């Protein structure tokens, strides 16, 4: 925190540090201080979402143009761009979306089902499109050459990497192949080889999860030791 920090900045750092210590106090034991800040955080996160949707999206993109608030005028009162009444067409999808609220009516709940059906259909279509644009390049990239030449010379390292990749891919895919009877078949005998490879993968995920959690701890300790202590120092008059 710089020496020229505003009172508002100092106050926010002070409250932030207090909240951090409150949450960490859970490590000693469950307590009221912790619970207060936990609820405070949930409340803020819940309130922030709708506010941002209204401020950054609904108001500037829908309400303002629809009601003509976004029309700027020259000093003589003539509009720079005339009001566009076509924006009123937004009322159609908005009205359609509002049918969702009929879910609370026993008699008219079927109206909500139309919106739910529409949403499910749209989401399904988007998911299919998304899946193909994400997965196809990955499938294509899994066809790796097992013998790799780099600058005209055979690269043992790159070849080994690709061999390991292809072997892992095939063994793990085979591990999850449950369609055919495994007993006594070659596929069944090879299947257990996929398990240790999966365990390596889970180990990597676990290790990286631990690393992420520790990174959070480092950042918070850094914040407390540097910023918060400086803010407290400023408040009590040492800064």
């Amino acid at each position, binding site marked *: 925190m710089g020496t020229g920090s505003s009172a508002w900045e100092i106050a926010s750092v002070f409250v932030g540090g207090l909240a951090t210590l409150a949450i960490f106090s859970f*490590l*000693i034991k469950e307590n009221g201080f912790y619970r207060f800040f936990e609820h405070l955080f949930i409340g803020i*996160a819940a309130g*922030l*979402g709708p506010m*941002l*949707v209204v401020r*950054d*999206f609904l108001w*500037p*993109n829908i309400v303002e143009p629809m009601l003509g608030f976004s029309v700027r005028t020259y000093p003589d009162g003539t509009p720079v761009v005339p009001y566009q009444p076509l924006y009123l067409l937004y009322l159609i999808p908005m009205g359609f979306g509002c049918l969702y609220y009929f879910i609370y009516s026993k008699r008219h709940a079927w109206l909500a089902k139309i919106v739910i059906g529409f949403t499910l259909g*749209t989401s399904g279509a*988007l998911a299919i*499109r*998304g*899946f193909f*644009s*994400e997965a196809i*390049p*990955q499938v*294509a*990239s899994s066809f790796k050459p097992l013998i790799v030449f780099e600058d005209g010379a055979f690269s043992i390292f790159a070849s080994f990497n690709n061999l390991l990749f292809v072997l892992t891919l095939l063994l793990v895919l085979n591990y999850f192949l449950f369609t055919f009877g495994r007993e006594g078949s070659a596929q069944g005998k090879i299947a257990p080889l996929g398990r240790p490879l999966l365990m390596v*993968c889970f180990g*990597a*995920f676990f290790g*990286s*999860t*631990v*690393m*992420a959690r*520790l*990174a*959070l*701890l*480092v*950042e*918070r*300790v*850094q914040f407390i*030791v*540097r910023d918060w202590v400086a803010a407290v120092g400023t408040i009590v008059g040492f800064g």
Partner: protein
Amino acid sequence: MGSRRIIYLIMLVAVAAPILLGISQRPSRLVSAERMYDVLEKVEVKPGEVAMVWMDFGPNTIAENEPQAMVMIEHLFRRRVPVVVLSQYQQAERFLSRVPQTVARQLEAEMPDQKWRYGEAWINVGYKPGAAIFMQSLVNAADLSKFLGRDVNGMPLSNYPNFAAIGGVERVKVVGEVTGLVGVFDTIIQFFQKKGYRPVIIHGCTSITIPEAYIFLDSGQLHGLLEGIAGAAWYSEVLKKFHPQSDNKRLLVTNTALSAAHLVIIGLIIVGNIMPFFTRWRSRGDR
């Protein structure tokens, strides 16, 4: 004091010591970060062309994602690439303004004769809800400036010469995605493209999502990757190599504190696995 609390205390000391003493070690080399550096180094923008950086993170992953966003934006600013910052994540609001402002201040302190001003070097168009549907509309918009409309302060983009007429999505030369949220990242990979346009995507991920992000790096869907704090730390070292005035001390201390914590965990795992043998050996001796 229970053994669990002793472990917490050891971890706290391990993390706090390098921070309090200002100990910093050189980070390990990360090729994925160097790939990203090369990508940004090659970006050439004509007037109207921009980079788009999505900061889809909140306080819960600030530790890793903020340093990544900082080094990414620092490099883009140094290269004078106009940056549009925005987010699909509500809680990113504060970072959308803080990160570019901090980077601009640092660069201006480093080079007092140069300026990085809001509206010239970057604009913040704020939080954009709608995920895949928004992304579809964005990539199909004829003019991104008109589609995005206004910045977070309510100013029309037409007021900022560098961002007044961006045109179609093809004019976005680099897409940066800094997030720890897999679903949000997927939205970029899946929908930030259209027929004839596949963007250059660079990504800053949290440690948890590194194994998953590697799949995209390997398949060529990502062109560069920052792996947690370590990725940001190495990137800052590469930046420092070419810009010696760049100050990355704090990031290196953070990375060192993380390494110290890792060493303690490895030590605890070893001790935890040896102790049962030791206890058994002692109980046999007592008999």
